[in-house]
């Protein structure tokens, strides 16, 4: 069923105003868009991170739906426990309603410290949706590098120095790792088109069994980006193919967006202070070349799995 934006505008928000996320932060945009189209009651759990600390500063609470946080590395285990309780209590007639379960984690809590518990939850087949708001670093603790931080980015534990030009490793491909769990629904997207995200999350939530959605969401503070550029930078990530958009539904890979023209990676890098050091000197030039090469490899890999070809207009 197609979702209409005008039907969603009047819907009560699961996460209300008054939270203390930074202006321009991608995470609340992900949450608002993700939860807008879900018709069933939801229970939310979140890994430790910006979203969790900024929405639940006691005695205030932005959530109008049930919310659980316990620790950093266990959102997958928490959502497993909630769902297990739900299944048990429903079977015993103590709960009547149909409830959906959503876990949020940043990339630190998902790619790194929480990968094991997410993998376990996916393997066990609980009915949940895990949404990674991926801002490519440990932003809550001050922009340390994670395994999602792109090559060449300056992060506080991989700073651009006079000898080492920022992070030297490529990020891991978490979306493909989750797809390799052969769960019913996996998607990779960003907040470049609200209806696109809304519909993907709706599909993820309505799919029985585990679903994983990896959403690139800028941290304007540590990407050193103009707060007003949230949507624009995501659009550039897609147009430069830095962040391919796709779904894996029951093992079928489906490309979600094909840019019309070739756009070099610099267009994505330039507005961001974290890549500023790459814009001068031979080392920077070499890293940009590497980034472009990595994009082509990754894009061809995704195209192949999706059974697609790409012929950009010149």
């Amino acid at each position: 069923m197609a979702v209409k934006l005008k039907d969603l505008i009047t819907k009560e928000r699961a996460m209300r105003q008054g939270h203390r996320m930074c202006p321009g932060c991608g995470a609340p945009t992900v949450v608002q868009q993700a939860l807008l189209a879900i018709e069933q009651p939801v229970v939310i759990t979140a890994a430790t991170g910006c979203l969790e600390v900024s929405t639940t500063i006691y005695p205030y609470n932005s959530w109008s739906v049930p919310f659980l946080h316990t620790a950093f590395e266990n959102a997958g285990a928490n959502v497993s426990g909630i769902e297990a309780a739900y299944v048990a209590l429903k079977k015993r007639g103590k709960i009547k309603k149909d409830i959906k379960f959503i876990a949020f984690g940043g990339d630190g809590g998902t790619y790194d410290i929480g990968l094991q518990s997410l993998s376990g939850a996916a393997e066990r087949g609980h009915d949940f949706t895990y949404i990674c708001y991926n801002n490519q670093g440990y932003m809550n603790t001050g922009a340390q590098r994670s395994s999602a931080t792109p090559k060449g980015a300056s992060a506080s534990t991989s700073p651009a120095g006079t000898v080492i030009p920022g992070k030297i490793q490529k990020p891991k491909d978490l979306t493909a790792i989750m797809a390799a769990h052969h769960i019913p629904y996996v998607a990779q997207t960003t907040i470049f088109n609200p209806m696109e995200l809304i519909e993907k999350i709706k599909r993820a939530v309505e799919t029985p069994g585990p679903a994983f959605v990896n959403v690139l969401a800028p941290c304007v503070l540590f990407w050193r980006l103009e707060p007003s550029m949230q949507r624009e930078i995501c659009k550039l990530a897609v147009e430069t193919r830095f962040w391919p958009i796709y779904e894996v539904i029951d093992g079928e890979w489906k490309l979600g967006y094909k840019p019309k023209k070739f756009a070099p990676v610099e267009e994505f890098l330039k507005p961001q202070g974290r890549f500023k050091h790459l814009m001068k000197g031979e080392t920077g030039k070499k890293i940009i070349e590497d980034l472009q090469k990595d994009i082509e490899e990754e894009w061809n890999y995704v195209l192949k799995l999706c059974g697609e070809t790409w012929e950009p207009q010149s």
Partner: protein
Amino acid sequence: MPRKDITSGNWAVAEAMRQINPDVVAAYPITPSTDIPMRFSEFVADGLVDTNLVTVESEHSAISACVAASVSGARVMTASSANGVALMHEIFPIAASYRAPIVFGLVNRSLGAPINIHCDHGDSMAERDSGWIHIYCEDGQEVYDTTIMAVRIAEQKDVLLPIFVCQDGFITSHCFEPIEFMDDDVVRKFIGERDPLFPLLDVDNPVAYGSLVLTDYYFEIKRQQVEAMKHVEKAYLDVAAEFAKITGRNYPLVDKYRTEDADYIMVIMSSAAGASKETVDRLREKGHKVGCLRIRLFRPFPAKVIVDALKGAKAIAVCDRAASLGAPAPLFTEIKGALYDAGIHIPANTYVYGLGGRDFFPHNAEEAFMDLINKKMSPEERYLGLRE
């Protein structure tokens, strides 16, 4: 009719779990507690329970799933030992702070390194400040009975705290002994249904667990946990009295063995109390007025009943199956503190025994008693059964 069977401490826990039929069990294997989830899995596979068994990928996830399920409103149980307990450490204070009444079969095993699978109390003693109730059991019967009582104690509304039911790894967990089991319907009537406060799954009355609580409220919330702990002794005694009426088996906070007129008392926990009591009988035959005080409830620490039991003694020997490296052993520290607060100065020796599963024999207990009788007193830590 209650039935008797020859079974192990681990299987006794599993049998209690079968009768309790909890909503959720999330568990991960580790020696020597593995038998508990393994046996329970058979009950699930054979349809003897309809528990939702979550076979997680680590102890950390086991306890995380338990906390999530418990705050969701489910009755939750699990089990672990040693390194598994240590891996769960991060989540234990969270369980206590969220007032999640999880019942936990803790099968005591020494912490590595060196890696060792046998019993000491280093694993649970490392959790003594995590906000859980700790009960230490002497034998399989007590493990079974305590597991059932624990459900009621943990879920009592003015307590609502998670609870460790500790038994000695291999010594109790794997020893087959006769255990009397209650009827299923008697157990189910005794434990009743869980009536959760503020369950996460009540979507019409949404609550948040796990808020960020900073300098302005954290202290007050921890203070509430202190208050909850103060209600445990009464809850324990009420539940134990009701249990005794049904089964005839009495479980006071501490087990006093021939301490009433004793001049010399050994304070000890769990299975080693057997060797201690045996030694008390033999020394009594020789005319020595000795006794054994076994601590069952360790958290909260029942200082008053302990002081009452010890105050008439001329000297005491406190035996710890755990060391607090660089400081006095944990039970000894607590006992000294309790006596000090009561204004009672009794000469006390401190002994560490049984680390890494080293056997504790009657002759080890006798050595400690003879130190007291021969007035060989000193504040220095001594070791029973150690080659030096």
